[in-house]
């Protein structure tokens, strides 16, 4: 079986009366020649790396190597304790964990690419907050990572997960869609509802350009992870409530691909356009590299 179309994946899960996570696991067993136990253990080890990165920056402030960013996960964590937030505490916690992962990443610390390093905060942010909620076991969550993987494979094979090729929608958008779909399955949603969650989450990320200041995976990457963790939770709730993505998820993925191809190079990870080209963006770049850089 190949991961290129979500509607095929949904049909197969329905036909076999199984979950998308189980389909992914079957394929992994077949391709890798490892046992289910070995594969689950490997994923579990990765989940521990995710957890470590998610908690680190909330517990103590973590700063990037350049000194441009850091400490935001800790700030949000402290604010959460005041009990006056607009967002529900668990949602805000997901945000703080997501921020932490990307702060650790910017400090050249250890993370798990989900699907990329720039977008590595969204999935662990949401998943570790669900672990802390006590509603799902570590085992359930590790299994749900296979749902996320299957959704990621579909997007990667039919469009792109690279900011250089498809803009930030391909990284942050894909991570948001993978997370939303995975937790819909975790929360008891049907494969069709998983598809809607992917469509809804991705639609809300379309057009997002990759414009990191100084070409560094810091500004706006870190805050985008924090905010899109919230989007992923919201899209999952929408889908579980019965809201449908009128444009089918596969077509949304194709739209993302077409939009990515139409994006100028300056908005695809070159660090030359968008936020990177603002006066502050350019000044920060100069501060890090100590020289003037040509921008468009």
């Amino acid at each position, binding site marked *: 079986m*190949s*991961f*290129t179309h979500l509607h095929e994946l949904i049909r197969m899960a329905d036909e076999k009366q199984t979950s998308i996570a189980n389909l*992914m*696991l079957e*394929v*992994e067993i077949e*391709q*890798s020649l490892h046992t289910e136990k070995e594969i689950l253990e*490997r*994923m579990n080890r*990765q989940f521990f*790396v995710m957890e470590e990165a998610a908690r680190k920056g909330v517990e103590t402030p973590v700063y*990037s*190597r*350049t000194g441009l960013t850091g400490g935001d996960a800790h700030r949000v964590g402290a604010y959460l304790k005041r009990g006056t937030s607009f967002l529900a505490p668990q949602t805000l916690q997901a945000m703080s964990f997501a921020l932490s992962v990307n702060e650790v*990443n*910017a*400090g*050249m*610390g*250890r*993370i*798990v*690419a989900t*699907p*990329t*390093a*720039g977008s*590595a905060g969204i*999935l662990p942010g949401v998943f570790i907050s669900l672990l802390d909620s006590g509603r799902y076991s570590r085992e359930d969550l590790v299994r749900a*990572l*296979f749902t*996320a*993987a*299957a959704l*990621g*494979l579909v997007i*990667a*094979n039919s469009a*792109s*997960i*690279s*900011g*250089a*090729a498809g803009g930030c929608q*391909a990284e942050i958008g894909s991570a948001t869609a*993978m997370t939303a779909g995975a937790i819909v399955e975790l929360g008891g949603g049907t494969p069709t509802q998983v598809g809607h969650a992917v469509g809804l989450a991705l639609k809300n990320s379309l057009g997002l350009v990759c414009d*990191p200041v*100084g*070409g*560094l*995976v810091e500004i706006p990457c870190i805050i985008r992870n924090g905010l899109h963790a919230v989007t992923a939770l919201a899209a999952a709730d929408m889908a579980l409530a019965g809201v449908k993505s009128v444009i089918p998820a596969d077509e949304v993925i194709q739209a993302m691909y077409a939009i990515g191809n139409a994006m100028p*190079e300056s908005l*695809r*990870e*070159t*660090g030359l356009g968008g936020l990177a080209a603002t006066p502050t963006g350019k000044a920060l770049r100069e501060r*890090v*590299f100590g020289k003037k850089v040509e921008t468009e």
Partner: protein
Amino acid sequence: MKYQSAFEMIGPVMVGPSSSHTAGAVRIGNLAREILNEEPRSVEFRLMGSFYETYQGHGTDLALLAGVMGYSTDHPAVSEADKRATEVGLVYTFKKEHLGFFHPNTVAVLLHGDRHNVDLIASSLGGGKVEVQELDGLSIRFSGEKNTLILYHADQQGFLAKVSHVLDSEGYNIARLSLERWRRGGYAITVCEVDEEIRGDLLEILHTKVSQLKDVRVVRSL
């Protein structure tokens, strides 16, 4: 299909900050090192597109260097690869160059050891996945995700038949086989991906049974 494994979407475990600029770059360096098959003495990296524009910020330079020194993508010393390179006497340079019509994150690695040289062009496709585009000037593609044999040989009739016969009788399943040559009857490189782990004795057997074979290198799956 570009991606097949769950661990390409959830993974790799890596040192930040960028899967295409850091993890992918480490892997490209690893590939060049494995093909060289000895300690590198000097290396030149030629980067194109967004790879060059942003390489310092993403630590791509450190990652490529760490890769040719054999570090893994989650090695804590990736961020100090330049210092370590100087300590071990590895000479390195970085240049900007338009290499051709490849993915924007593409680099040429010219690696020199005491006995061998490797001239490799590879792309970082995103999420840490890489693809070799050229080897020693020949258009050769492989990802290093499977165990790969790189066979340097004279282009003569029957070569592929002999190679597949040896692999078959030694219990290897060929996943992909492709031959590229400079000209008919000249120098050629064959890349062969197999499903199994490559045992040490295989290289000897290949050398004895396949007369056209000049050299073999092994790239173990990433």
